[in-house]
């Protein structure tokens, strides 16, 4: 009797000789034997390369990618801009971040200038909303007393996402 045996291996690489040997023994234990006692060389379902990459990045994926809080923190243009600026300067202050957000708005909006009133509105949102939200999501370290804001070491994928989200803003403008 000839059986069609389909074996699925979940592996990051092409099964080595040793793994093939182990598999052969496993199959023999359930009375499945192969001609010449060898596993067929062509293994179904093995995709060279792509599987390897998928698997590798899965291991590197930050756990926060599965957290709602992360997306809540990222779901705001000013907050992504704050993170983007912090990635470059590492450490900043509430005053400087207010300036950066204000300047970012005047360079992208129709208005030519921001008044002191506009600035204080930005600062209020920064202190009472954006910074606490980012700190809760552990994307920044924020000391309300000193006004110092720092960025902790972030996963490469998170940094990549922050940079890409800001880069996409200027793409929108160009379109």
């Amino acid at each position: 009797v000839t059986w069609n045996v389909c074996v699925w291996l979940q592996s990051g690489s092409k099964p080595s000789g040793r793994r093939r040997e182990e598999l052969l023994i496993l199959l023999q234990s359930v009375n499945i034997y192969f001609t010449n006692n060898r596993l067929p060389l062509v293994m179904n379902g093995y995709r060279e390369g792509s599987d390897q990459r998928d698997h590798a990045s899965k291991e590197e994926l930050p756990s926060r990618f599965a957290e709602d809080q992360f997306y809540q923190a990222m779901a705001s243009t000013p907050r992504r801009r704050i993170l983007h600026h912090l990635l470059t300067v590492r450490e900043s202050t509430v005053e400087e971040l207010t300036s950066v957000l204000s300047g970012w708005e005047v360079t992208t909006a129709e208005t030519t200038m921001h008044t002191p009133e506009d600035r204080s509105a930005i600062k209020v949102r920064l202190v009472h909303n954006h910074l606490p939200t980012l700190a809760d999501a552990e994307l920044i370290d924020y000391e309300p007393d000193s006004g110092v804001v720092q960025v902790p070491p972030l996963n490469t994928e998170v940094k990549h996402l922050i940079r890409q989200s800001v880069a996409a803003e200027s793409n929108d403008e160009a379109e």
Partner: protein
Amino acid sequence: MTFASLIDDLREEEHQIVIYRGDDPLEIETWLAEHGVAVECHWITSDGPDPFIEIKTGSEVIGTIRVDAVEGLLEPPIDRPGDRDGVSEGYGVLFELLEKTVFSGMARRDFLAVSREIEDRAYRVGEGTLWASFQTLSTFKSQAEVYRILCTETSLNVHIYGVDDWSPPLIPGVTYHTESATRFEPYWILAYDGGSDRSQACGLVAQEENDEYTGFWTNDPQTVETISNRFWKTDR
């Protein structure tokens, strides 16, 4: 208070310009530094926002503007009063934000744009008093037509001060003062009282030295009053 002390006092006030930019210096930065205005640079990454400017008095930020809003300083718009089509809204912003900032080494053209802004405001309000010292009346020659329009289309009272070296045309609404003009001689001064609306008051004080001007403009009714008082006192 003399005009010289007005300029000196303002020079002592901490008026600061902070430029946020990437690696490349901006043209305006060099211009401001050349005209005696303190400039501080803050580095931002080039893939972040476009360069922008913050204007501070002491530690308080009084305005944040795009760089193109101050480009009017590099190429001042020169227009007749009332003819605003060619003037960017940015120039008005500039006028407001950089008031009481002392600029030095200014060309005549630079302050001419400022005086246009003042004359234009007077034109728009359409009433009140405008004082102008032109050093010599012959300097007023090129402006006579502008003032004719200003006075025929409004009910402004205009007082022109200048040393008598040219016979100016008679324009209804314009009074010439030549006797008292000597005391204003090194200065180019303009003051508009805003008519019945003091918030529209504005002025310019610039001292000439070797074809270069050092001075400021202002929107502050109090400062404008100080300037115009000097004219009144001279008349009495």
